[in-house]
């Protein structure tokens, strides 16, 4: 196939996935939360089970006036949602969902590092929003975001490094290719650390201190309205997709499944991502919010030592075998 056409086609597919999957997760979150907490919620839009509520929400966001506070730093304020959202689109390009080369947007030699580096850039969006809003609650939210990111970046990296050591490569398809079923118990600690640290990086409950609505309204996003606010929400859902995708690829064996051939690999990947996304939503409705000092303590005294122990274990097994 023509090279340029091939690249364009891949980018279009990735973009479509980027547009669809976060919305699917948003819809799932609405419904799963409603069932778990026994909340009726809006059940009218669209007829069956209120399935069109998300669409209605989108239309509502699009109609709202886009307000920039008078004292805000205009350009930074307006740029922030894009900085928060675009990195997740870039990460989706490198996540492989199937064994063939056509099932990944672009194979990158240092895929893990690309994914983690670009994910870390997304947090700059929250920081920019927090500072530029000229609002003390936003500033507090930004501060908490920064403190949280600094604390949880390290265990996430260490856990990812452990898998890279086990596979002997830092390329994402390479890691899944090297995967064996016994990696699951071997890397389980690293996987948990990675997932928890990723949740914290996304500021999902129970790590939603930066946007704690009962304390600081909505943290860095307090002053946002309309589409820009919707973009921040979309960034959160896209973040869930990316985190679940990365966890699947790094720790759960991606397209490997107990049965079904190579051809069904993408089904397994999507299934694992869906289950993880369900767990993310489940955690949101079942756990209370961690306090700021508890957050820092969990990262520095639990996750970092666990990740280091996992690296040591990986090293030992790797040398012995």
């Amino acid at each position, binding site marked *: 196939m023509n090279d340029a056409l091939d690249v364009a086609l891949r980018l279009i597919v990735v973009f479509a996935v980027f547009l669809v999957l976060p919305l699917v997760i948003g819809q799932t979150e609405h419904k799963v939360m409603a069932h778990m907490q026994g909340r009726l919620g809006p059940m009218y839009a669209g007829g069956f089970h209120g399935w069109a509520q998300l669409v209605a929400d989108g239309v509502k966001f699009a109609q709202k006036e886009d307000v920039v506070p008078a004292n805000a730093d205009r350009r930074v304020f307006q740029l922030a949602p894009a900085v928060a959202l675009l990195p997740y689109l870039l990460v989706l390009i490198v996540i492989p969902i199937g064994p063939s080369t056509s099932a990944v947007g672009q194979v990158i030699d240092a895929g893990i590092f690309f994914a983690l*580096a670009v994910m870390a850039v997304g947090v700059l969006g929250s920081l920019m929003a927090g500072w530029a809003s000229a609002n003390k609650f936003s500033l507090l939210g930004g501060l908490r975001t920064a403190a949280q990111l*600094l604390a949880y970046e390290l265990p996430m990296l260490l856990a990812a490094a452990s898998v890279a050591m086990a596979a002997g490569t830092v390329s994402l398809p390479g890691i899944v290719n090297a995967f064996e079923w016994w990696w699951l118990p071997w890397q389980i600690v690293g996987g948990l650390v990675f997932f928890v640290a990723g949740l914290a990086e996304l500021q999902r409950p129970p790590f939603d201190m930066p946007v704690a609505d009962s304390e600081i309204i909505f943290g860095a996003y307090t002053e946002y309205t309309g589409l820009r606010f919707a973009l921040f929400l979309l960034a959160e859902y896209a973040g869930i997709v990316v985190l679940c995708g990365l966890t699947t690829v790094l720790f759960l064996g991606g397209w490997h499944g107990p049965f079904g051939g190579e051809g069904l690999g993408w089904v397994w990947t999507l299934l694992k991502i869906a289950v993880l996304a369900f767990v993310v939503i489940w955690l949101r409705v079942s756990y209370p919010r961690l306090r700021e000092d508890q957050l820092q303590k969990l990262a520095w005294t639990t996750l970092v030592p666990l990740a280091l122990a996992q690296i040591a274990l990986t090293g030992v097994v790797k040398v012995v075998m």
Partner: protein
Amino acid sequence: MNPVLAAEAPGFLSPTGVEIAFLLVGLVTLAAAAVTVTTKQLVHAALWLVVALGGLAVEYLLLTAEFIAWVQVLIYVGSVVVLLLFGLMLTKAPIGRSPDADSGNRVAALAVALAAAAALVWVVVDAFRTTWIDLDGPAQGATRVSGEILFRHWVLPFEALSVLLLAALVGAIVLSRRDRTESGPAQEGKR
């Protein structure tokens, strides 16, 4: 320039697309760096620093050093700038110009910067002269290649650097714990 080598190497007068891109990104990086040190708006300076560091990462990419490029983004944009912004927010950096965001050492700083730039340019030019990277062949900056060079030929400097970092880490802990003896228990537990 050595005329014999120059004859073998591609000329300067017919630049390839990659060379033009390298030059343009370099100009953007330089401009962003200049704005970083001249702007009076503190947080804007930090954000322009993101552009400058990101530009450097793109330069690494264009030189096929993919791994170095992503690490550059991960460490500098993802952590160092976040730390900077954290500090700026902690001190409530104002929106708009800070009239006192200036230093009396401007001339000295400029002199040091120029001297450092001259020394670096001289060293790099002297070290590589007319070496050309073959961009079409297998990537010479791939992770495997970087790792092999680092741990086969440069192990000693690598270890020396890690000792230096360890010393810095211990120093940071000592500094941040100093006031515990002077004025009650310190509250600051973060980095």
